[in-house]
Each structure stands twice: as structure tokens, then as C-alpha cells.
């Protein structure tokens, strides 16, 4: 029972493990299951937000809303030419009539294909820079050749979505922190209950000259193992759940939702959670046990 990192088999026998239930393992499995799900949600929404931001940054749409088709066509051609002359513009693409008709089909049905129906012309533009000065130059160049043109920054109409994702990410990480705090509280309660259960043995150990560190090490090891094995179980189950949810999201075919994916680093982070929680449990158990022992002679 000397102060050493790994207790011997004899040391492990000191606390009668048959007297304690293994409820801790199951509690930790549930805690880690919920924590890993919250963590996966946070990491997934963070990835999606990053992807969305990358996709939309510097992208804008020019709408030519001239009702007369000949003028609309002429202004569109002139606007495309003007945009291509600007050095800040990296890509210009006029959205063709067939694509516009397809985009409008959910609202207009087959009427959207009527050539007499005036539909605004759309030009997709990618910019190398998203500064206000660049946007102002682009707006001036377009307005010079197409006075009825409107410019929409895709970032601006997607910003509520990005804000929502940021909020979900923050909420998920806050949940992880709360679960960690709850785990520490559970461990402290378990350690105190363990001290009460093994009070007689601990008193004997004290009278034989064992130190607080020696006694707390016995509890630390046991609680850390319960947390680790329960945590691994919870993490594996939650990981399986995350994979299933990912498959469902991909099946939806939504560009936005399909961004909710986890990278290798994210999976590694989730896999490390049982270890992190076992370390947290060790520290909490040590603090609880040494604190309680300090109150007796």
C-alpha cells in the first residue's frame, strides 16, 4: 500500500469491492453517452458553420430585374463583361434560363417555363476580397451598365443560419461542461459514500500508519476505472448513434445538413472523452477523500 501509481492486487483487496455496487459504471456510461452526443452536436455544427462560411464568403448574386427582355438581356451581357474586367472578381457565371426555370418550379410549376413570363436574370459572382470598398466598386460597375440591377451578398441572407449554428455549437459545448461538472459531483458523492461504507477499514489503516494519500489512492483507482469503463461504453454507444444520425442526414440530401459531419480530429476528440472524464473523476475523488480524511485525526 505504499505510494505508487498502480496499486498491487493486495492493495486492491483492501476495499471490499463486492460490497459496492457497480452502479458507478452505468451512471458514467449514461453521462458519457449524453456528453459525447452533445460534443458531437457541437463539433458537427461548428464544422457546418465553418463550411457554410467558407462557401458563402465573397459570393454575391446580381439580379437584373428589367421587365423588357431585350433590355434585360443586353444589360446582363454588359454587366457580365463589366464584372469580368474587375480584378477583384474571380468568377462570373450567368445563370441560364433552364436553371432559373428549375429553381422556380416549386413555386410556379410548369408556368415558370413560359418564355413570355418575365424572370429576372441572375449572375453568380465570386470575389477575391469581401471588403466594403470592393463591394462598392462592384456595385458601381454594375450600376453603370444595368441601372435596375440589385446586388445580394449571400452571406447576409445566410447570417441568421450561421448565427443559429454558432448558438447551437455554444450550447452543445456548455452542455459538455455541465456534464463534466455533474460527473465531478457524482464522483464526489460516490467517494464520500465509499468512505462511509469502508469507514472501519480506513480507521484500521490509519491506526496502522497509512497516509491520506495511500487511502485516497485506493478510491481514486476504483472510481477512475468505473468512470473509464462506463465512459468507453457510453462513448461507443453514442458514437454509433452519431454515425446513424449522419447517415440519415446525408439521405436528406440537404446541402446545409450534410455539412454536419465530423472530421478525424473531431472523432479523436470524442474518443478521448472517457480518458478525460476518468482523469477528472480521479482528481475529484482525490479531493473528496483527502478532504474527508483531513477531518479525522
Amino acid at each position, binding site marked *: *500500500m*505504499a*505510494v505508487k501509481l498502480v496499486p*498491487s492486487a*493486495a*492493495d486492491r*483487496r*483492501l476495499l*471490499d469491492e*463486492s*460490497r459496492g455496487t457497480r452502479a458507478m459504471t452505468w451512471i458514467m456510461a449514461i453521462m458519457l453517452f449524453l456528453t459525447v452526443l452533445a460534443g458531437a452536436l457541437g463539433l458537427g455544427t461548428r464544422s457546418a458553420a465553418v463550411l457554410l462560411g467558407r462557401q458563402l464568403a465573397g459570393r454575391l448574386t446580381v439580379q437584373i430585374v428589367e421587365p423588357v427582355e431585350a433590355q434585360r438581356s443586353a444589360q446582363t451581357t454588359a454587366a457580365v463583361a463589366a464584372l469580368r474586367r474587375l480584378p477583384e472578381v474571380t468568377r462570373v457565371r450567368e445563370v441560364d434560363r433552364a436553371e432559373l426555370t428549375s429553381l422556380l418550379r416549386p413555386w410556379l410549376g410548369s408556368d415558370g417555363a413560359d418564355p413570355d413570363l418575365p424572370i429576372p436574370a441572375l449572375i453568380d459572382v465570386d470575389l477575391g476580397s469581401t471588403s466594403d470598398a470592393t463591394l462598392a466598386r462592384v456595385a458601381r460597375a454594375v450600376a453603370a451598365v444595368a441601372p435596375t440591377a440589385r446586388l445580394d451578398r449571400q452571406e447576409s441572407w445566410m447570417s441568421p443560419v450561421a448565427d443559429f449554428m454558432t448558438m447551437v455549437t455554444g450550447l452543445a459545448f456548455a452542455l459538455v461542461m455541465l456534464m463534466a461538472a455533474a460527473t465531478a459531483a457524482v464522483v464526489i458523492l460516490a467517494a464520500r459514500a465509499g468512505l462511509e461504507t469502508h469507514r*472501519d*477499514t480506513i*480507521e*484500521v*489503516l*490509519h*491506526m*496502522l*500508519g*497509512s*497516509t491520506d494519500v*495511500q487511502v485516497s489512492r485506493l478510491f481514486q483507482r476504483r472510481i477512475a476505472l468505473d468512470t473509464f469503463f462506463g465512459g468507453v461504453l457510453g462513448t461507443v454507444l453514442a458514437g454509433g448513434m452519431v454515425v446513424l444520425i449522419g447517415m440519415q442526414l446525408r439521405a436528406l440530401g440537404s446541402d446545409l445538413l450534410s455539412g454536419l459531419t465530423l472530421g478525424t480530429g473531431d472523432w479523436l476528440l470524442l474518443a478521448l472523452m472517457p480518458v478525460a472524464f476518468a482523469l477528472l473523476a480521479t482528481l475529484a475523488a482525490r479531493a473528496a477523500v483527502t478532504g474527508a480524511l*483531513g477531518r479525522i*485525526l
Partner: protein
Amino acid sequence: MTGQGQYDFKKRASAVMANIVQFENVGLRYGTGQETLSDISFTLASGSFYFLTGASGAGKTSLLKLLYLAQRPTRGLIRLFGEDAVTLPRKRLPGFRRRIGVVFQDFRLVPHLSAYDNIALPLRVSGVPESDIEAPVREMLAWVGLTERAKAKPPTLSGGEQQRVAIARAVIGRPEMLVADEPTGNVDPDMAERLLHLFDSLNRLGTTVVVATHDFHLLGRIPNAHMMRLDSGKLLDPTGSLRFPPPKPA
């Protein structure tokens, strides 16, 4: 345990050199009641054998608790192994306790550990490597006549067997002082005498032994043993004539 041979007066005389324990005006009170121990003053010479006697409730167990550092006094001075035990920092208590073997009145064996593991506890607490534990534990088991019961757990042992395990556990670490609270209370007279003989053997090896008992038949069994008598929390020492060790006749 080795060295159970002839009484070695020279060794014993050389061991009785210094005072291992000194109590000066010690008082102990539990809660707000009357003092359980009052004005206790005595010294214990290193390597000596002491009986502590007195009726039930006289304060023997409380005095022993002060000796094995399970309790701090309410007042007075206690010096143990040459150091002030009253103000001893808590973190130094384990080191002191390892120098004291204790036989508790209620044995305090760990019920889920075998006799072997109970006896091995002090060595494990002291960090003795596992490879160095088996031989002394086997020796102790033989010494108390429990070799065949090494794997038995305390609930399956008789009172006398439990007592012998407790004694073996108390002495395996070769303590400088052995404190035993009614160690013969649960055994028949033959076994009581055998256990006393074990304490005497240990004492001959230099350990200071303090045995609390109210069995007056035992007192004459150890030659040169000193006797302390407690009555209602006071040492019967109104004139100082019963101070221990007793003053030598002029």
C-alpha cells in the same frame, strides 16, 4: 519472530535506557462532560513491560488511545519517542503510528481480508515490497499457531484466533512500542498465558510493551513488569510513589 531463547538481561538492560513516553498533567475530556482522565503523569522506559490495570470504566482504553495517537489530550504534555505528540502535525502521525503496534480490544480485523492479509497489512502500509512480505507473515502465523488458518477470514475465526491474528498484526512490523487493550479478554487461561509469553518474548527483543488488563492473575506472570493503576480517570499516585517506572528503593 526470532530470538525467543533465554532471557537476555544484558539486552534488556541496554534497551531500558531512555523514556519512550512521558505524560505530564494530561487531561482528557470527551465533549463537555467530566474529564475521563485527570492529571495523568508518568514515564515509560524504553524496553520495559507495563501492565495498566483498573476497573472497567477507569479510563484504561482512553489512556491507551492517547498512547497510540488515536486521540489528542485536552490538556497537558505528551512526549512520544522524544517529540511533543500534542502539537505533532497531522501529516507526521502516520510515521509515528508505524512505530507503535496496537492490539485493539475489539481486534479491528478487516473482515474481508484473510488472516494472512490482515497480518501483512502493516508491512504493506509501510511500503515493504510484496516479495519481502510472505516470509515474515508465515513466521508470524506460525508464532501465533495459525499456519493452517492463513486463508481464513475473520468471521470464520474463533474469538481466540481473531485475537492472535490481531496480536500478530500488531507485532509484525517490530514496533518500538506495543500497546494491547485487554488482549487476553477473549481467550481461555492457557491461551492467555501463551499470548502473554509472546508479549514477553517481544519485550525481550527491546519492544516497550503496555498491556491493559483487569485480570490480576496475569500480573505476576512477567518478571520485572511494572504496574500502573487507574481509578476513575486518575493514576493512583497521590504521593508520587506509584510513578512509573517505580522509584528504586533507597
